[in-house]
């Protein structure tokens, strides 16, 4: 526990730099990344990330120092160049965009690697640490770096804040944005510059190969929790900052561990948790909803069967054995028992000895299901031209689904009919 308190007291200035630096880098990348994601340019971000390497090396060769300002300028230039190359190739040749991205990415990176190895062998003492750009150096950030990254991050945030509504509109409907006279081309140019800038400082944290992760993954995770872009940007930056913090902590307790990859693992974990657990959009919550629906279907089917038995004997409140119910419509016996107990708890049936009896509510709900079933069958035969012997299965689904509004609409459309295509009576709620 000691390490935990040591770490979070932030008394060590080095820890302070690393934590603030890592969180700043990941959060600002995540914010810009949200728009990269929404503009469906995730892989373009990846290409830029790889393409800044030669720029960094060039910046170093020309300036002879590792001053971040020079390196950033160099990176910015080649980052932009790579984008221009992708766009040129896609527009002017028969090469498709994905191929152009992959090609530019690997070629720029290859050239960067050659330059890096040449620099390393040149014997220039200042070069040591340049290869940090490959995998990031979040754990080795110092105060001087923070000044530069802080400034860039502020510029990024300011631009995003200023152009928030334009970026959002463009992501949603470019043609419309054009039609209302927005300077689409120029706004895109600004966004692209922001991506390049975010990449240039982000690679300090995780390196070129994993850069795409801190750009895209927070946004992808955030997408599962909200439909609003502003909330999404906020969530993405929180996810990003948290993974930066976690990465810094992990490399604090295990110094041999690379910070960048851990940041990525943390943010990926958040993303996968989101994919599965997020309410509404998450895979698991969708499964839970499915189960709930299936349960409702089972409930209503049993009520329907009890109602139909009542129709046959002209008495809806006779007690029925489970065998009676199964005889009318086959259910696996344990399922039926479970469903009946659930219905009893909900007040739709009562248990009398070993038999079951509909309550007033149960009768009315069973009646509604039967009514919708028969109305839908009638609708399908009269309005949709479907043969009477094919409408039953559809009605079996729709009877559980129809909202009261659609039910009323259906009754009105069919003019309150009394019999279905199979000459069964369509029951309406009668005033008792």
């Amino acid at each position, binding site marked *: 526990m000691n390490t935990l308190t040591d770490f979070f007291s932030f008394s060590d200035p080095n820890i302070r730099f690393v934590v603030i630096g890592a969180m700043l880098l990941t959060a600002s990348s995540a914010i810009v990344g949200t728009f990269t994601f929404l503009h469906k340019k995730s892989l373009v971000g990846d290409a830029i990330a790889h393409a800044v390497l030669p720029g960094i090396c060039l910046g170093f060769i020309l300036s002879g120092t590792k001053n971040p300002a020079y390196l950033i300028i160099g990176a910015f230039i080649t980052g932009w160049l790579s984008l221009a190359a992708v766009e040129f190739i896609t527009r002017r040749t028969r090469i498709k965009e994905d191929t152009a991205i992959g090609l530019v990415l690997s070629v720029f990176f290859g050239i960067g690697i050659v330059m890096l190895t040449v620099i390393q062998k040149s014997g220039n003492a200042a070069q040591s640490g340049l290869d940090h750009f490959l995998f990031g150096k979040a754990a080795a950030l110092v105060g001087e770096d923070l000044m530069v990254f802080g400034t860039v991050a502020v510029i990024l945030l300011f631009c995003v804040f200023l152009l928030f509504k334009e970026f959002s509109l463009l992501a949603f409907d470019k043609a419309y944005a054009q039609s209302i006279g927005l300077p689409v081309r120029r706004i895109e140019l600004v966004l692209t510059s922001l991506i390049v800038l975010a990449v240039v400082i982000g690679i300090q944290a995780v390196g070129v190969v994993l850069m795409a992760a801190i750009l895209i993954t927070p946004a992808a995770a955030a997408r599962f929790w909200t439909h609003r872009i502003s909330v999404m940007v906020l969530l993405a930056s929180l996810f990003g900052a948290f993974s930066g913090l976690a990465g810094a902590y992990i490399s604090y307790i295990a110094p041999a561990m690379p910070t960048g990859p851990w940041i990525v693992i943390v943010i990926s974990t958040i993303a996968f948790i989101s994919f599965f657990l997020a309410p509404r959009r998450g895979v698991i919550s969708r499964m839970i909803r499915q189960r709930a629906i299936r349960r409702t279907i089972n409930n209503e089917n049993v009520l329907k069967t009890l109602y139909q038995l009542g129709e046959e004997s002209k008495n809806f409140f006779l007690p029925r054995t489970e065998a009676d119910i199964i005889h009318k419509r086959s259910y696996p016996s344990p399922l039926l028992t479970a469903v009946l107990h659930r219905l009893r708890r909900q007040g739709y049936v009562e248990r009398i000895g070993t038999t079951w009896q509909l309550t007033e509510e149960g009768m009315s709900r069973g009646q509604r299901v039967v009514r919708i079933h028969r109305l839908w069958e009638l609708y399908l035969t009269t*309005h949709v031209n479907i043969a009477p012997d094919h409408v039953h299965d559809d009605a079996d689904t729709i009877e559980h689904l129809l909202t009261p509004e659609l039910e009323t609409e259906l009754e009105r459309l069919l003019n309150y009919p009394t019999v279905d295509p199979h000459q069964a009576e369509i029951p309406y709620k009668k005033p008792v």
Partner: protein
Amino acid sequence: MQPEITTTPALEVHDLTVAFDRKPVLWNIDLKLPAGKLIGIIGPNGAGKSTLIKATMGLLPLSSGYVRLYDQPIDNVRNRISYVPQRESVDWDFPASVMDVVLMGRYGKLGLFRRVRQADRDVALDCLRKVGMEAYANRQISQLSGGQQQRTFLARALAQQADIYFMDEPFAGVDAATEKAIIGLLQAMTEAQKTVIVVHHDLQSVTHYFDWVIMLNTRLVACGPTETTFTQQNLQETYGGKLTLLSDVGDLIRRENFPNREGVSKPVL
């Protein structure tokens, strides 16, 4: 509702429902089509015309129902069916010649590992001749006009030497001469007892082109011989107004992630 077909139908579609993302785009379609006829599928945009032929060929999963061709399940008669997809569905920048594409029609007959033989080339060339493209056999497909692309696809379908042909908008974006040539060819095919099913857009030409029509708008409106089926009333029903309730319910199924057709046992074939 639909006239009885006395002989074995070329195609029987029974209670077919197809859903995208759970929303039904075709509701309970029942059809029987006779052999040796030129059959048009018509209906407004989004009526499910392409979906119907894709589902029939087993390219899309069915939510319900089954399809039989010549009274057989589709997988038993794959080599008797042929498909002409929409022209835009492929990348015409693909490095291939007209001949290469037409030879693809022979792949189903050849089976795994077997290579294309001279006999296949002869068939392919013969098919190219039928569509008036023999001069273009070695032309790169990226250099073809829209009409020539369509003829190439048609030749590929012919090279399959099938009995039933599904064509997805073969007249879209082709010139008048090509359209005339194609329709002549299709009529000749039906005279040779081939069944040709065509997704079609242009209502003006329906009565000139087709023996039968299928009128579709997410549900089957009518299906039968053109002269008795292609009526003002059926047209009104096909094109005039959507069934709002039906599409509302479809949207509801998708929104609620509803398990469509739970517990329906698949019909045993």
